[in-house]
């Protein structure tokens, strides 16, 4: 990403985009819709409800809800989510600005990581999960990446992309397996660096708001990752720091050290509750009913921050970022419901996963 100074993109205010986003957000899936959806008995019922009662009606208009496959329904919803992004960025042609590449870069990283996992699993089914509608927008061919069968092939394939330099030194083990965790850390770091860098192109007040939102996101993602490492892998402070995205948000290094040095997941949660984010979560009643579910609480906080940012924002960049995050959560909620219903998860349990 380039090193432009603050204010490179200050020509237009893009109020129309801000207004359009608010109008689009007004059509979101509501708590009442979710409550209705979790009671459905089949994927067909869910598709029928989405088709008749939500903004997904357009993308589902021609499908036969009675015969629709779960995977196809999910892929349609995912594509629609991307179409929303296209509609917003195309509205006042702001998509040409570097910042708005975040959605494509994020999708490319997901595809590369998915490819690595298929390589590690010696599996060839990646093509089924490839979001083919992105072909042409991505910096590599999506059909061809699905044909890659080894890390060496992957590196060769990515040679002409920005990802080659990032991944070329990642070692493989004697079986040719790749350390997916390390690659993910490298790629996501690159993504966040790019976001923070691109935000600098905006005038200072706008850039500050964007930074705050991005860094808060990174803070909470770091905390979620650290908790997982502590709770499920018993990682120590240094191991966690190695996998922490190094951006300073509201959590200082000293605070993070204190948190990461917790002796157990339980202690981690206790210490977290005394941090800034822990207090905000408690004050806003965002704690999960399951006291241990720090991840759900943190994600609820991210959701709340995004809603607030969208409500208060007067700039396109903040609005687009917040809106796409909120729509991402909506998509995640719907997929949780679809899979929950498909695999017979009790509705109460599905409901507890919904962020609204």
């Amino acid at each position, binding site marked *: 990403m380039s090193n432009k100074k603050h204010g490179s993109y200050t020509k237009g205010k893009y109020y129309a985009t801000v207004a359009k986003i608010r109008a689009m957000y007004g059509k979101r899936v509501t708590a009442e819709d979710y409550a209705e959806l979790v009671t459905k008995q089949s994927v067909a019922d869910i598709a029928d409800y989405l088709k008749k009662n939500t903004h997904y009606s357009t*993308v589902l*208009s*021609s*499908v*036969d809800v009675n*015969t629709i*496959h779960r*995977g*196809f329904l999910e*892929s*349609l919803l995912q*594509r629609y989510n991307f179409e929303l992004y296209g509609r917003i960025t195309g509205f006042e042609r702001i998509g040409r600005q570097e910042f708005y590449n975040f959605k494509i870069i994020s999708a490319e990283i997901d595809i590369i990581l998915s490819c690595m996992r298929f390589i590690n699993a010696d599996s060839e*089914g990646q*093509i*089924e999960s*490839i979001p*083919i*509608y992105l*072909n042409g927008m991505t910096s590599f061919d999506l*059909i061809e990446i*699905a*044909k890659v069968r080894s890390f060496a092939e992957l590196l060769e394939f990515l040679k002409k992309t920005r990802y080659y330099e990032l991944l070329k030194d990642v070692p493989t083990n004697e079986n040719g397996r790749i350390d997916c965790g390390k690659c993910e850390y490298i790629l996501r770091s690159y993504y966040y660096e790019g976001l923070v860098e691109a935000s600098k192109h905006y005038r200072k007040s706008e850039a500050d708001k964007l930074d705050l939102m991005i860094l808060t996101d990174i803070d909470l993602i770091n905390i979620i990752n650290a908790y997982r490492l502590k709770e499920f892998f018993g990682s120590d402070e240094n191991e966690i720091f190695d996998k922490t995205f190094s951006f300073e948000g509201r959590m200082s290094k000293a605070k993070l050290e204190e948190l990461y040095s917790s002796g157990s997941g339980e202690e981690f949660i206790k210490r977290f509750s005394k941090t800034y984010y822990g207090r905000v979560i408690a004050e806003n009643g965002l704690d999960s009913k399951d006291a241990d579910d720090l991840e759900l609480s943190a994600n609820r906080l991210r959701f709340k921050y995004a809603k607030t940012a969208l409500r208060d924002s007067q700039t396109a960049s903040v609005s687009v970022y917040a809106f796409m995050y909120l729509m991402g959560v909506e998509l995640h909620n719907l997929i949780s419901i679809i899979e929950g219903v498909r695999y017979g998860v009790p509705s109460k349990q599905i409901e507890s996963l919904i962020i609204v």
Partner: protein
Amino acid sequence: MSIEKMEFVNIAGLTKDLDAVLEKLSECGCFHIESAVGANAKSKGFSSLKEENPYNSILRKMTEISALANVKIGSVEVGEDFDENLTKDGKYVDGVLEKLKELAKQRTEVTDSIGEYERALSQVEHLKGLDADFEKLFSCEHIKVRFGRLPIDSYNKLPYYDDKTFYFEYFTEETEYYWGLYITPVSCAEEVDDIFKSLYFERIRIADFVHGTSEDAVAELAAKIKDFTEKKEALDKSISEYINGEIKHLDELFTHYKSRHDNFDLRSKAAVTNGKFAVVGFVPKSDSDTFLKLFDDMDGVSVVMQPADANGQLAPPIKLRNNKFAQPFSMFVEMYGLPAYNGVNPTMFVAITYTLFFGIMFGDVGHGLVIALLGALLWKFKRFSLGPILTRVGISGAIFGFIYGSVFGYEHLLDPVYEALGISFLPFRVMENVTTILIGGIVIGVFIMFISIMINIIVGIKNKEYESALFSNNGIAGFVFFGSILVGAVCELFGAHIVNTAYILILIVLPLIAMFLREPLSYWVRGKKYHMEGGVGDFIAANFFEVFEFLLGYATNTLSFVRVGGFVLSHASMMLVVMALAEQVAAGAVPIVVIIGNVFVMGIEALLVGIQSLRLEFYEIFSRFYTGGGTPFTPVKINYDETIE
């Protein structure tokens, strides 16, 4: 303007005559039946009849006939040519039903075929462009052909499978799909089927009856659909012709069976014992002579007439007696609840006050006449019960419109009329007399409130309800108190100083004390001893707040009538806006603005004024003297309205 007086009727006889008696009762149209077992007969050893209605089955069959033939079976005058044999064993109805079932079965088969061919046609239409014979394709030994639709996203993934042996061709495109076929060697079919399954390919099975190329098949299927549609039309015609030939008999039979069915249902109201029956109910006093004559030819049946309150367990039903003008307004009274048997019929009072309120608030000659016409049409063509009310209030609106000089918002259109008639005091321009209009509303309201209180006093004295008639806020005490305050205030306003200590003590304080002590005073009037429940403290607290509420009520109820004046002004103001808008537009558009404006104002004002008038009736007037709780007088009759659809 009263409540119809009733007679309590006790009919007794031998059980063999029960059906004949019930038939007479349902034919006479003036007998309100009650359960004889509930009316003390039980104590005399009587019990009710618990039988299944034997006519249920035949009427259900007739309902089925009606549904199958999509025809309405209703009641008719059963003529002398009615063939009684048709009622024997129900064989006629069974025969008609069987015949219709057979025809309906054929129609269902044809309809199903049409659906099947239409589905096949819609599928094959998606494959237009396939220039190959379906039969030949399906008969290939070494290749498999699958028809269906593939999501466009999945189609874009097909290059990934370049090394697999299959060929996909699409013929038409939908929003999300390509319709087409894939061909693969038999040896690869399993693998390729799996690939297409993972790509969400939705396979369709081409029916065996599809032949030739897609173009041929489309033509053939369309022809088949046409054939079957003609067959269906022919069957519909047969059913229609058949039922038209039988409908006279069916209507007669329905009338015959329905009357027996409903009469049989009445048996459950009778009480029986040892071969005897008892039926009780009420008959309007005015019909009692005619009613008695009905049983002259029945020797074993005795009919005893008694006063309406003869049976302590049965409250006499209420039949309101109204003249033609007030009759439609009984709907409002019934909506609120019928009066008690010894109460008052307020319909005439409602008719007058409602018409007056509506007319004052809706004063416009044009609007009033349109509403009146609309009401007349709604009654004539739809029997809409609000229609006659609209007619009356519309005319009232037109009369007040003449007083205000307003015709569809034109305030000077009637000026030549007044001049020609030599009326100098009209028109009474609404917008030039705002204060008069608002005060006028209150004056009318106060006048009506006094009448309401007087009605309550009269009814209370008649029914010996002294607390309500003498000492309540709607009794003499309230009348004196409220009247004295108003008279005193008005006199003081106009310089006549009549309010002095004696005036205050006798006409204001004394009635207040009477209202406060209304309960013990009413006991005293009746010569009974009053027992204070809950102690003196409770008595004082409860009555203090109640009297305080009475005082508030006088103020709020009086002010409530300001709305009458308010709506007069709102109607006139809205029309002023319409006229102002009409002046702003081009000459050609003036009629459109005036018409739309008038329609809008008429609609919204009629609704508002109608509701507000009703509110005044229920809250400010009825609450002063009216207690509902009466049972409507519903004479037994055969309910032919329940036509079989």
